[in-house]
């Protein structure tokens, strides 16, 4: 059969597939209806067959190009991305992540590095003011001092709401950048963790030396556990990505990174949740006029929850050895 005839015969089928692609692109499968979906699959298969035989049919090059485009377009409508699966994510967050955190050495490295340097920097900041000025900056230090000049005696609901939103935007943003930075040259996560620990430690150390010390302590107590843990979690998740580039376990670097992604992302998701919890506390409880005991109570409860999460859930989900 001559090509001209063949094209005439197939043209209707291809045009139908093209129309159905357009319908799917604009409205999804519902607009096509069940029969339409069946017809779509048939039309896709026959277009695929035509493409596979294009060489044998001696189709002109621009027709082959058309078929490549058409089949690619239909393929993207036939195979669709998987939606969020809530149950699967629940399993990830409450079974897989704690287990991974408990048994993954990057978390303990991140914890050790962060808290070690934090306390060292706090001691330095406590003993010398010039150290704080060098690390944090004179202006930043002054603005921190100024913001704690008055005791946290209740903001109106307005300011609390505004600040709550700001804390999510700012802190969770820092956490996500900390996580993404973990990718830089494999050790970016380590560097960012160290720099965060030095800065925070210097501010804490310095604030213990000034008059407004009690105001400062009262403010940071309630949300401290969630927020600092969230920073450690996001550093750990970032380090997991970065270290996958360094220690590949015999895979190519890209493959090793792609494998680490599936471990790091849920951990980061948990960190974002913690940042949001911390922001709610920081916006509404920390600056309120509640007695210090209540704020300390919040801190104790959140610490217990975190310990239960990592050690309790982590231990429950531990990898079982076959007996």
């Amino acid at each position, binding site marked *: 059969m001559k090509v001209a005839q063949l094209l005439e015969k197939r043209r209707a089928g291809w045009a139908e597939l093209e129309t159905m692609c357009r319908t799917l692109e604009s409205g999804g499968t519902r607009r096509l209806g069940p029969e339409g979906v069946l017809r779509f699959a048939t039309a896709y298969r026959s277009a695929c067959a035509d493409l596979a035989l294009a060489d044998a049919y001696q189709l002109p090059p621009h027709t082959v190009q058309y078929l490549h*485009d058409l089949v690619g377009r239909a393929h993207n409508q036939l195979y669709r991305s998987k939606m969020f699966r809530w149950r699967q994510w629940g399993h990830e967050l409450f079974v897989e992540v704690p287990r991974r955190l408990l048994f993954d050495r990057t978390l303990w490295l991140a914890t050790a590095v962060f808290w070690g340097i934090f306390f060292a920097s706090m001691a330095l900041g406590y003993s010398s003011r010039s150290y704080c000025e060098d690390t944090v900056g004179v202006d930043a230090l002054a603005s921190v001092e100024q913001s704690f000049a008055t005791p946290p005696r209740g903001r109106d609901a307005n300011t609390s709401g505004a600040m*709550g939103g700001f804390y999510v935007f700012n802190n969770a*943003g820092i956490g996500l950048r900390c996580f993404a930075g973990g990718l830089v040259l494999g050790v970016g996560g380590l560097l960012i963790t160290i720099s965060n620990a030095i800065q925070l430690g210097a501010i804490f150390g310095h604030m213990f030396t000034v008059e407004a010390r009690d105001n400062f302590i009262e403010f940071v107590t309630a949300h401290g556990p969630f927020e600092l843990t969230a920073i450690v979690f996001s550093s750990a998740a970032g380090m997991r990505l970065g270290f996958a580039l360094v220690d590949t376990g015999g895979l190519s670097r890209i493959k090793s*990174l792609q494998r680490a992604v599936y471990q790091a992302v849920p951990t980061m998701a948990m960190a974002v949740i913690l940042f949001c919890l911390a922001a709610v506390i920081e916006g509404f409880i920390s600056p309120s006029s509640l007695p210090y005991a209540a704020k300390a109570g919040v801190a104790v409860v959140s610490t217990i929850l975190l310990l239960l999460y990592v050690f309790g859930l982590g231990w429950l989900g531990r990898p079982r050895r076959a007996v």
Partner: protein
Amino acid sequence: MPQPQRQLDSRIEIVTPENIAFHYILAGPFRRLPAYLIDCGIILGFLILAFIVLTMTTSFGGVGGLGIGLWLLLVFIVSWFYFGVFETLWNGQTPGKRMLGLRVLSENGQPINAMQAILRNVLRAVDGLPFWGAGGLGIPFYMCGLAAMAAGSRYQRLGDLACGTIVVVERRSRLRGVARIEHPDVVRMALQLPVSFTVSRGLAHALSVYVARRERIAPARRYEIARSLAEPLAARFSLPGDTNPDLLLCALYYRTFIADSSAGSTPLSPEREAQEMADAEVTLP
């Protein structure tokens, strides 16, 4: 089956599980930038609109601060997750990508999942380096992403590499039929060609490329290009030496693709043809 890397230009071949191979054009940085700018415009417009609406409604109730708080929460969600959520819900496309016909796919041609969509966009924080301006609102210059794209063969920025994704162009070409050349001279020449001569695949390909493009070539150049193929053919068909090369190629094209000289034979169904092709390949050495 591992395939040798055959990619020379930005065209990649994807083999689906049904064992069908088709081509995509990879989208380079300069195709992706306009889509990105459109998306940024949408984000900016949405945030400004949301700011106006939220502050207006909440200040009527006397809780303007709550409006600012909600807006900042919205800024966080939209600036970090706009791309990821759209790419999950819209099958690898954001509004900007849809407008310009781009799509994100996994490296093997499968659609991306939610995790890939979210992560490849969170990693914009690295790809966007260096940032002009501070904090979360700095303007990204995407030098890291550009460097990664330049280093690889598939225009993948770091976020793409980490998630195993590629960005392809979804082209919409229109179907054009066989070029119609039914000039009487062509038909007359076609009748002079020997019936026994069968056109090989390579020759058929060359003919159809030539005829598809000859309209856009000046006659003198046409003559020059056609001559290198037409002269040996004319000698083989024992046609006179002054035969017009362009005419000869058109005639051969006409006979191969359009005129049905074998009017008596019954047209085969594609399945039978495919079967016969397969049989022929098996029996041939």
